[in-house]
């Protein structure tokens, strides 16, 4: 019947329409530079987890949160890929005298915030003081360096009650305290959660952004160095599943992405540029070293047993392949305090582990509550470690959090005696502040400390670089022996980019890509 035939025709037309709809994608997918770049000067970048906060005072230091904040907040000091420090908003900076207790920065003149107000010493001091008071996860790094005062219009002095050798890093683009917030922003901290108030190359377009999903930045017309503004518009899109990240950048939905070791090979064979360097350690942090909630953890033999129980080589090979190496340590190879020899400290030896457990009075093992963030393979490594622990009778239950804010909150409320971590790319001093000093933070929530360790670290902080290296190694060796954590793998930070995007660099000495150099010539 004719009506039947015309229905068939309609159906055919509909199918053709769908195919036609799909076809332009072949073109876009085939083109190398992705959908949003090119003539329009736009950049789309995928970040792999929700940022903890847009507010530098509350941010988590990770590639995602940093990418977001570096776009809008100009740093005082710029850390180069080789690990050296150079000028940014501060044209001159350095320690005053010896002992690492006083620091001074001289600011560039004539710089304005995005809102047009001048950037001067008073504003910088106000910003740093706010970031200290906000109490974000990084605040422990300052140690006693909390006295920040403006001197004249362009000089800022920092005075410390205890030695701190890492202040240049803390005032760089890779730490909250280097990212300068305008007085208006500091005056209304609530506004910093959904708007930016910096002097960086871009400002957030809040109306186009959806918190937790995507963030749109537009060029800052008041930026002091217009040459460094490479795009008229930068979009950061959050995709947490690493496979989805790869699929998205591969299909041309983005130009750059924070990658993952699990997909790096696939990215390479898809024609993407993979920029990677060993940068952070993943493992399980045994928070409750005093055994407040989990009695067994107070015994060093138990903690060592947990270390012996884990086959780091197998975990690393299975989860990270060529983009990881087994490690027992917290510090990464580019820094003092690292020693290849220390990686032999806890060989895979389940028999030894059982022996130690039995000696500590737990021949049948025990059970343990764990917590892990899903970002940066932390939860996966935690599960893998837990799998090995199960073989020596230590049974675990894991609570996973997708949002970093939930992870931080869960850990800080001391609900869990142990939990996964991803940590690294930092000098011994900062590592020690996070792990061994009683300053509350997600890596030492039970505020444990050890007098021997504290003593060694205090010496190291005030020492010259040469002395400090030896002292640092001594401290890390001691801590490793205590078994306060169970590291598994040293993992590469990886970024994917379409060819044609330049300025993405990751090295062992600077593990975060500097957003200000990303460009498309």
């Amino acid at each position, binding site marked *: *019947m004719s009506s*039947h035939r015309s229905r068939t025709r309609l159906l055919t037309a509909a199918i053709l329409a769908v195919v036609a709809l799909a076809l332009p994608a072949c073109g876009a997918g085939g083109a190398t530079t992705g959908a949003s770049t090119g003539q329009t000067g736009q950049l789309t970048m995928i970040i792999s987890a929700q940022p903890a906060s847009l507010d530098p005072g509350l941010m988590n230091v990770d590639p995602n949160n940093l990418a977001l904040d570096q776009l809008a907040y100009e740093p005082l000091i710029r850390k180069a890929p080789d690990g050296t420090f150079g000028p940014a908003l501060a044209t001159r900076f350095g320690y005053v005298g010896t002992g690492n207790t006083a620091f001074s920065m001289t600011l560039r003149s004539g710089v304005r915030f995005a809102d047009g107000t001048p950037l001067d010493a008073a504003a910088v001091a106000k910003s740093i003081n706010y970031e200290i008071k906000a109490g974000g996860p990084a605040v422990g790094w300052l140690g006693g360096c909390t006295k920040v005062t403006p001197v004249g219009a362009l000089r800022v002095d920092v005075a410390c009650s205890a030695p701190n050798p890492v202040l240049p890093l803390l005032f760089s683009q890779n730490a909250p305290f280097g990212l300068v917030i305008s007085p208006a922003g500091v005056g209304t901290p609530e506004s910093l959660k959904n708007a930016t108030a910096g002097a960086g190359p871009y400002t957030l377009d809040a109306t186009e952004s959806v918190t937790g999903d995507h963030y749109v930045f537009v060029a800052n017309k008041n930026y002091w160095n217009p040459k460094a503004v490479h795009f008229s518009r930068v979009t950061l899109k959050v995709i947490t*599943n*690493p*496979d989805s990240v*790869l*699929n998205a950048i591969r299909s041309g939905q983005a130009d750059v992405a924070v990658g993952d070791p*699990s*997909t790096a090979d*696939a990215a390479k064979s898809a024609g993407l540029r993979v920029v990677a360097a060993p940068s952070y350690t993943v493992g399980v942090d045994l928070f409750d070293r005093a055994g407040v909630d989990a009695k067994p953890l107070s015994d060093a033999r138990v903690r060592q047993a947990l270390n012996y129980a884990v*086959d780091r080589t*197998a*975990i690393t*090979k*299975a*989860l990270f392949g060529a983009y990881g190496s087994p490690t027992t340590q917290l510090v990464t190879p580019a820094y003092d305090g690292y020693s290849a020899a220390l990686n032999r400290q806890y060989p895979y030896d389940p028999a030894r582990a059982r022996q130690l457990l039995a000696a500590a009075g737990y021949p049948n093992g025990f059970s343990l509550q764990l917590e892990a963030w899903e970002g940066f393979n932390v*939860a*996966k490594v935690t*599960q*893998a470690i*837990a*799998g*090995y622990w*199960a*073989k020596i009778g230590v049974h*675990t*239950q*894991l*609570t*996973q959090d*997708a949002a970093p804010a939930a992870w931080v909150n869960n850990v800080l409320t001391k609900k869990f005696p142990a939990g996964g971590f991803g940590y690294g790319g930092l000098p011994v001093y900062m590592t020690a502040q996070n792990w061994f000093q009683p300053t509350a933070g997600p890596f030492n929530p039970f505020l444990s400390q050890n007098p021997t360790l504290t003593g060694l670290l205090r010496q190291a902080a005030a020492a010259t670089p040469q002395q400090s290296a030896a002292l640092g190694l001594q401290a890390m060796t001691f801590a490793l022996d205590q078994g306060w954590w169970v590291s598994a793998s040293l993992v590469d930070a990886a970024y994917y980019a379409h060819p044609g995007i330049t300025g993405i660099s990751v090295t062992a000495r600077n593990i975060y890509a500097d957003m200000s150099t990303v460009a498309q010539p």
Partner: protein
Amino acid sequence: MRTVLRRPLAAAGACWLLLVTVAAVFATLIAPYGSEDTDLSVALTGPGRAHPLGVDPLGRDELSRLVVGSRVTLAGVGIALVVFVVVGVAAGLVAGYLGGRTDRVLTRVLDLVLAIPAVLVLLAVLSLAPNDGLVPMLAFGVLSAPVLARVVRAASLQVREELYIAAARAFGLSDVQIVLRHVLRRVVNPTIVQGAIFAGTALIVQTGLAFLGFGPRPPAPSWGGSVQDASEVINRDPWLLYPCGLVIALTVLAFGLVGDGLRDASAGRWATERYLPPRSRRATVVAADATDFLLSVRDLTVDGPVGPLIQDISFDIAPGEALALVGESGCGKSITALATLGVLPAGLRRVTGTITVDGKDVTDPALLAAVRGRRIGYVCQEPMTALDPTFTVHAQLAEAVRHHRRVGRADADQIAHTLLAQVRIRDPLAVAARYPHQLSGGLAQRVCLALALAGDPALLVADEPTTALDVRVQAEILALLHTLRRDRGLAVLLITHDWGVVADQCERAIVLYAGQIVETGPVDDLFQAPRHPYTQGLLAASRSLADPDAAPARIGVAAPPLVTIPGVVPPAGQWPTGCRFSDRCPHVTPECRAEPIELRHDGPLAARCILPAAQPTTAR
């Protein structure tokens, strides 16, 4: 239950569910590996002999994870199902059995609960305790229970009205006892059906929540959790996506199949007559016999489910002629008309016969479709249901006009109004704007006539066009029919059991009995000297209804005493071999029953009777 298992699909579903349940119960015995045992050296190595369903990213055996994961998954479904059944049955029974105020209030509450999107409550519950596997499924059971409650309520309302409950009450059983003994038994079947369907939904919800990370805490396995794990390695090991997805899909499917099987077993299959003509290949036009007849039907036989309904019906209608098809209900009058038009209900089939219109063979359905409406119009018995209730009179008429006459919208409107005027509707504009449910029966039949005339046909098939109308309106419609014949030269095939109408309207008549033509001829001759005892009986009955002194009979005014033919028309499939009227015939002889009787021509009449011609009529 046994009937269910006889359906292969439902049986397969039940087997799968049994398998999954057994696997869940004996999970730790069946699983080849510990579900949480990691062997990172084989992670993502795909299916193989050691790991038939592959290995997950942490080196855990996928088969073992699915087997052990079925526990938490099925437990979640089980919890939801128990709550669904308990709450649903309880609420349904209370509402249905107590009735009255309780019923009204409870029904409102159930409707309200049903309107709440379940996902809201699930997320709300989960936001308080994200890894709780129990409470969300419990909540889901409660939120869905109204679906079951409605079904149970309907069933128990029905039981309540039945006698044995009253009897039980008279014996002094308490309400609770009655519910337990009688009502509950009746709601078991619908409960199982609804429960099976709900279980499938609950499984999707449970696995969906686990997929979102609201399942059991890792490393404990669950089906939804396996999908989530697989989603993270789509690029490295796409295989892993399939075992978990298929297990979920198969289990939901199994619930669905079992549910469908149960419902079909208890309700019987959906089956109704449909009037759409069968599809057919395009027909080639057969060369025409030049005849003077407008319509010729030859040897028309229609089969139904139990055998023929009409057999070897042949007749002709000349232009402008009116032919009556007369007989009692069940003789095959309407079937003859519908078969002639090629619009037999589903299940009936024309097996032999040719239909010729204007000398062209249009037996092929496609050719027949082309003459419907344009050469032949059709009016049916029930005007109130003969029109589409969702369109105005005008819209329906104009559509038919446009379709048949290929005219523009404005012309069609014009013609539609003319048609309404032609069927003697006083205010065509007002009637055209009305919907069928706003018309009286007489008005509706006029509209039906207009619709039948929309294609300007030469022949009108009118199937008892006045039967459903009251007496005054009947006369009006018949008068209208008369006028239309006179004004348009319309031929009519009139189906009726009313001899008065035949006398008024028709030149010739065909008397049908049990699917056969028993007598045919000019109406005047039939009235004067009917040959067949059946015709005689019909006429006598008709005349006794009318004023005994008035001849020809006037349209049925009830007046006893009533002369009737004893007995009833034998149903299709139970026709006697010989004369089909033999069982009711006052003049029956043994020869009548011996063999089929041919139609014998005798003067102007032809009758299917072997008796001598001059039989007296039974009345008069």
